[in-house]
């Protein structure tokens, strides 16, 4: 591990091809975002100002990085040493996750160069302000938590020693910051009780966001271990992952119980099976993210099966992602009276963010001691469960019912989602303007034309002239805009009407031209009073 791996031209594989394509599209989309602004790069509107860049990149991104604080708390605070081998990959993933979230934020912010403003311009009443601070601080904490890996690589023992001493403080700080902002991402939506659909709006949103983040922390660690095993041939053993699966199961149960009680309390249980877009996507969320993984994790045969555990964890991940998308997009559509479908550029940027994450993780795993061999060996003697090996058990060795559950959950969720999207329609907004003429009689009773305006008299004027609204406005159908729309200010004139110029086309002459109104001719008496 300490020897620098030789730099070689990477082989071109299927997944690398995909990654390259995604990054190319992302680069193209970045140019569009920069040159054409948010209007050119997104389908966001005044009615729907937050799309997948917030819903996925931010809300899911932060949640997916929850493995960092879950695992570091487990090892450092609860002193469960056997989990130590996962700490580094978990912290690295979390750190990368947060850096990517901040990177993705740059695309979404209208003025990304002002991103530092919350650090100096405080509004402690704002959840966003709190999240901004927490994410900044926590990213710093994660960098420090991960830094021993870098210092080890360069053999900086003194720095390592200092870090070792302060590590517990860092970890406690990290856990606190995570608790705050993971839940606060849910608090974002507390302020919109009339806009977020009742299946998702709850005073307990922060609690749900925190619990699901914890669940996701366990699930992501399992998923990452499985993927690292495949990619790098090194990872931890089932002995560590199975308990994580058990914790995830417990958290799923806890969240479900609280959520059920909350639904009952708010009286929205009836909405769950209503034939609406929202209900369908809610059911999909529950099916794929709660029911199916719970069934899988309850069965010991599946829980202890590498691929079975991976599938269960993957379902949890998809469930939480669906939950965040439901809160940020599905649940906000009806009240907005509009339908949001992300632009291809939005999707390309989001995929690129994920792609960059994979790429950087792979590079770090290759060049830094992320999977420290000596720690793996020093850890307790590993009991390899029956059939547990480096590559993972083949999927066909899973019990048939488990495969059925996975298939049902997956296709069920897809079917529910598709049915939901089919049902999606723009909510009826305010009644369309009808053709009926408004009954103006009552309103017109209040109409009083403004007072007479007396013009200053020019030396050659035949007599004083004034403008009377009463003789210019049809009081039964006043149309202010025929004059005020063009020439004359509503808000009072800055200077007096110019004496001697009133006959020109910018003033009286504009209408008094012989067509719209009688022309200004030899007879001055209609306007000018003889003295």
């Amino acid at each position, binding site marked *: 591990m300490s020897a620098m791996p030789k730099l070689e031209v990477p082989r071109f594989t299927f997944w690398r091809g995909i990654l390259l394509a995604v990054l190319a599209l992302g680069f193209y989309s970045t140019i569009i975002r920069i040159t054409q602004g948010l209007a050119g790069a997104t389908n966001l509107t005044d009615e729907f*100002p937050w799309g997948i860049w917030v819903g996925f990149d931010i809300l899911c991104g932060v949640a997916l990085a929850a493995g960092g604080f879950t695992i570091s708390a487990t090892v450092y605070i609860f002193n469960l040493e056997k989990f130590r081998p996962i700490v580094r990959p978990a912290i690295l993933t979390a750190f990368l996750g947060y850096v990517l979230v901040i990177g993705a934020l740059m695309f979404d912010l209208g003025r990304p160069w002002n991103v530092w403003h919350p650090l100096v311009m405080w509004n402690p009443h704002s959840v966003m*302000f709190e999240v901004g601070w927490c994410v900044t601080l926590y990213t710093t904490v994660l960098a420090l938590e991960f830094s021993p890996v870098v210092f080890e690589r360069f053999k900086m023992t003194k720095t390592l020693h200092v870090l070792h001493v302060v590590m517990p403080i860092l970890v406690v700080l990290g856990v606190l910051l995570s*608790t*705050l902002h993971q839940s606060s991402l849910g608090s974002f939506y507390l302020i919109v009780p009339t806009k977020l659909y009742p299946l998702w709006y709850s005073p307990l949103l922060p609690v749900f966001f925190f619990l699901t983040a914890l669940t996701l922390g366990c699930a992501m660690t399992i998923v990452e271990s499985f993927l690292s095993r495949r990619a790098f041939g090194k990872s931890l053993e089932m002995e560590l992952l199975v308990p994580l699966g058990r914790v995830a199961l417990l958290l799923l149960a806890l969240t479900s119980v609280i959520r059920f009680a909350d639904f009952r309390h708010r009286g929205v249980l009836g909405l769950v099976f209503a034939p609406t877009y929202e209900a369908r996507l809610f059911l999909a969320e529950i099916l794929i993210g709660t029911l199916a993984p719970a069934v899988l994790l309850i069965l010991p045969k599946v829980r202890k099966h590498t691929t079975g555990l991976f599938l269960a964890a993957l379902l949890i991940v998809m469930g939480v992602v669906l939950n965040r998308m439901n809160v940020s997009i599905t649940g906000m559509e009806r009240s907005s009276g509009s339908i949001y479908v992300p632009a291809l550029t939005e999707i390309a940027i989001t995929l690129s963010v994920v792609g960059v994450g994979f790429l950087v993780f792979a590079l770090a795993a290759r060049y830094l001691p992320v999977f420290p061999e000596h720690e793996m060996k020093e850890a307790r003697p590993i009991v390899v469960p029956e059939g547990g090996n480096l590559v993972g058990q083949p999927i066909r060795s899973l019990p048939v019912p488990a495969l059925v559950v996975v298939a049902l959950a997956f296709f069920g969720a897809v079917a529910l989602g598709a049915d939901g999207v089919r049902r999606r329609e723009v909510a009826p907004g*305010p*009644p369309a*303007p009808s053709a009926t003429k408004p009954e103006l009689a009552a309103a017109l009773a*209040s109409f009083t034309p403004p007072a007479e305006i007396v013009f200053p008299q020019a030396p050659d004027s035949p007599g004083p002239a004034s403008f009377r609204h009463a003789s210019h406005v049809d009081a039964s159908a006043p149309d*202010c805009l025929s004059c005020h729309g063009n020439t004359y200010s509503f808000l*009072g004139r800055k200077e007096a009407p110019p004496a001697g110029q009133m006959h020109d086309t910018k003033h009286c002459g504009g209408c008094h031209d012989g067509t719209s109104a009688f022309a200004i001719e030899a007879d001055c008496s209609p306007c000018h009073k003889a003295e």
Partner: protein
Amino acid sequence: MLKPQVKGLLLDTTRCIGCGACALACKERNKLPKTSDDVLKDELSDKTYSVVKQVGPRYVRRMCMHCVTPSCVSACPVGAFVKSDSGPVTYLESRCMGCRYCMIACPFGIPKYEWEKKAPLVRKCDLCADRLAQGLKTGCATACPTGATTFGDRDALVAEARERFRANPGRYNEHIYGLEEVGGTSVLLISDGKAEELGYPAGLDGTPPAFLTWRALNIIPDVVMTGAVLLGGIYWIRNRRDEVEAAEGPHGGSPKEH
């Protein structure tokens, strides 16, 4: 010191003749471009801060309500929105970083965004704060020929609305929209119909939505204190056990590492 009077507007749909003078005066004073040939066809946008809509047999204005406890002011992470003592909710554009949380948070869907621009800003009515500072009425109230938009102290406007109810029995649906909704707004609406059926949002109760957030934010210090003590305690107990074990020598089944 005397508390400055909170200014506001009283909108009365029974007096509106749909001339659009308010909307055009708004454009004039904010130097906004013309966006439609028919002023009644305009929609609220970054170029239109005030509209008049024909809804059935009525004309109804929509504009920023200038809430007493505004959601946008609470939501903005950089304090770019300010509720001034005299009523207007104004915007310090140099602070804005473009997160658009104000647009999500506003229960009336008022803040609009300059999506087309490279350095976009949020746009909305500011109740002519600069005119108010000069002792003038808002542009829209100045232009209105029928008193459908009346400018004044909020308290006086509430009294005026009640007086109109009293003087015209049967003419109004006797509810002042904005008196209680979202904890009160500086712009009030009375009508012979229901505001909720005229395009105004329904289901708003007397709790400012911002309070729902503050309730959660107020728990934070407790969470931090309790959490720090709890985590520190667990850390101490769990690691102390190891230290003791190390001093007394390993016992039990599993040998410790190191």
